[in-house]
């Protein structure tokens, strides 16, 4: 079943044509990754899907509903959660309040409490630091918090923007382990990564972006074998 369908999306930043006719689909239950160099348009694609940047043409459909240019906070209400690049945790609030704010739109209090425990099991370090201010956490812990906060919205589709950026190799592996675990429990994931190798290893399918346009697509296994991909993104 198609959960997200993006068709011929165009985005301009002032005079810059950032996305050119980008199309892709995500099926329920998948992990799909967008890979590409800096400035290829990966983050812009996520922002266009979640309503953070206006699109000039094309369409985005989520669960069969047209969400093109809908305000971001309304899109979030459809259980499409964007975990933005650079963590963006609420630095002056405690870990627990950060997580509670993730469930801002939810009215099912008992279920929210259960999900809070689930996030703490997924990230035991956050449980240890639940009363600490988010700004005092390390980079890796902040990334966990950002993802945990996104999970608290109980999303059907989670957009993850560069979750491994600036993290030590051990933590990167930890983050990817959690991404797979989140996916196993039923959340579909659209992952943007510079670490193409790790991303292709967890993903079902992938799209390669170059200069704002989709250059290649296929299953992750195919792309891992593809000569062009190996040369450009996997270091030979």
């Amino acid at each position, binding site marked *: 079943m198609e959960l997200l369908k993006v068709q011929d999306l165009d985005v301009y930043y002032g005079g810059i044509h950032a996305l050119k006719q980008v199309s892709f689909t995500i099926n329920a239950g998948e992990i799909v990754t967008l890979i590409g160099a800096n400035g290829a348009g990966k983050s812009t694609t996520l922002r266009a899907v*979640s309503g*953070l940047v206006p699109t000039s043409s094309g369409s985005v459909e989520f669960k069969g509903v047209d969400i093109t240019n809908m*305000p*971001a*906070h*309304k899109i*979030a*209400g459809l259980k499409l*959660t*964007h*975990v*933005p690049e650079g963590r*963006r*945790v*609420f*630095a*002056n*609030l405690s870990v627990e*309040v950060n997580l*509670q*704010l*993730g469930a*801002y*739109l939810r009215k099912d209090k008992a279920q929210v409490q259960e999900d809070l425990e689930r996030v703490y099991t997924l990230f035991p370090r956050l449980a240890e630091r639940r009363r600490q201010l988010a700004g005092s956490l390390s980079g890796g812990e902040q990334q966990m918090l950002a993802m945990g*906060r*996104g999970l608290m*919205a109980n999303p059907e589709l989670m957009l993850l923007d560069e979750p491994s950026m600036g993290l030590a190799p051990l933590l990167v592996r930890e983050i990817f382990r959690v991404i797979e675990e989140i996916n196993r429990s039923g959340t579909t994931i659209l992952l943007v990564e510079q670490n193409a190798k790790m991303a292709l290893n967890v993903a079902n399918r992938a799209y390669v972006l170059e200069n704002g346009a989709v250059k290649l697509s296929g299953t992750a296994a195919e792309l891992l074998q593809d000569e062009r991909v190996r040369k450009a993104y996997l270091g030979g």
Partner: protein
Amino acid sequence: MTKRNIVVTALLAGFYLLVQLLAAKRVLLPYDLQILGLICINIMLAVSLNLINGFTGQFSIGHAGFFGIGAYASAYLTVVHDVPFLIALCAGAVFAAVIGIVIGLPALRLQGDYLAIATLGFGEIIRVVILNIPQVGGARGFSGISRATSFGHTYLFMILTVLIIKNFISSYHGRACIAVREDELASETLGINTTFYKVSAFTLGAFFAGLAGGLFSHYMGYINPAANQIGFLKSIDILIMVVLGGLGSITGSIGAAIFLTLIPELLRGLAEYRMIVYPIILILIMLFRPAGLLGGKELSWDALSRFYQRFAGKRQKQRVTGDGSE
């Protein structure tokens, strides 16, 4: 009602009775009483601006404009239309809130410095518009306002303002405002309607500033459209209270409003030099407490008792080590 609420209510009522008693015994002169009233009005202004600047993170420096709207609108109603004082007071506050929405919707699309300049501009527009309405006295000022505000009014409305804003901040909606302050984009991705909360906080702040204005014009019996009354100098005064007390601290704003209203009076003995001493005090506070007197923290019974316990504990420890060395 919890035990703590009863104690706080008793203290607040006790303070009011004490002031009334001292006023009746002529220990507190009308002049002192007037300063106490001004303190209450300034607390309302500082706490309501803190809601916008400190809790929602939208740097506004046009707060005196809303104060002016409330002051003039309510005075116009009581003087020209003989509207009862309390109704005029509320009408003035509502009018200020409506203007708050009208200004907030376009201005709050801006951020940081740009928002500050825009609100400064809007504040001045309000002042100049009032200056050019002959029905409210124009540049001569608006005189002949009945002095209907008593100290009791300012005291009661100050308590109501603090209570309502404090409850708002600790509510579900208040938390959303704080999230907007912390990170607008992240708030939006969590489903928080950031525009709605920015405009709401701005409007609520404008409402209480308008209320303070109505109290003020009926306290003094006269108001004029000078910069230090309803213009940018007054806005800066309020801003200083908020920043000095600590952005995001209600008790800080209250403390700073009391301190900054009293200090020019206390320094009166220094005659002309007080306007040198006063800024020096401000500079020193900012040097040693850059986040404001209380930072983002609140002064509460719990914090006080923790502080006391730590202090007492330290002394006990000192005594123990002192015994050991003998």
